[in-house]
């Protein structure tokens, strides 16, 4: 089966679509400083929940301690919420926030 140039053009026009990429903003998991949780405990919890190497756990813990908070993970909202609940269940002050 063949189509005339005119009808082919028409068909191409009908099927032409606009491709839009919808980019969802990542969500951040924040851990907040508190005056009582021992630093070593924070490191152990980061290692257990995220599986980060020891050096990264220490660096994140020190950021929390010195700057009052640290972004410990960033990505899809459902995973961010999951990690946040794990951190809270381990007794850390944590929350999620959409990237601005």
């Amino acid at each position, binding site marked *: 089966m063949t189509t005339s140039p005119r009808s082919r053009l028409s068909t191409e026009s009908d099927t032409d679509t606009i491709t839009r990429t919808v980019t969802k903003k990542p969500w951040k998991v924040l851990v907040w400083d508190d005056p009582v949780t*021992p630093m070593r405990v924070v490191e152990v919890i980061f290692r257990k929940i995220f599986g980060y190497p020891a050096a990264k756990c220490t660096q994140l813990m020190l950021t929390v301690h010195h700057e009052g908070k640290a972004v410990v993970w960033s990505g899809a909202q459902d995973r961010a*919420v999951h990690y946040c609940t794990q951190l809270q*269940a381990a*007794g850390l002050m944590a*929350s999620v926030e959409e990237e601005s």
Partner: protein
Amino acid sequence: MALFKKKRDGSISVHLNGAGRAFVGEIFNQVVAAENDPDHEWHLAMNPPINPSANSDDPLATFSRQKEMASNSELAQMTINEDTLNPGEAYAWMTSLNLALRATVGLHNLSDEESLQMLDPEVRQYVVSIQSLLFGLADCL
């Protein structure tokens, strides 16, 4: 003598006397009670908002947190009389004790080291005792 000692096989031996175990056991009991009782004085501090910018948290997320807490604190309760803990049990002890610490901080509005120093001596001793246990456990994990 250290309160906890990591053995060669990775397990953790517990060196608490009767009073120490009673103290820790009572904390685990309180954590389990606070999870289940919305009127418990620790309940609010143990259940902070997950997404503070939202009007309310997703019930599935709060259920997931509750399940995780229950899993840890009930395991801690079950193993209170053990002389040796595996790393998973020791982690459950650590997180349950840390939850109790978190709840105490929330209850007494402790925001910094200074406010800790101004606490009632009995509460301060309670906080310091939990911290000692946490230091010991964290060093073994």
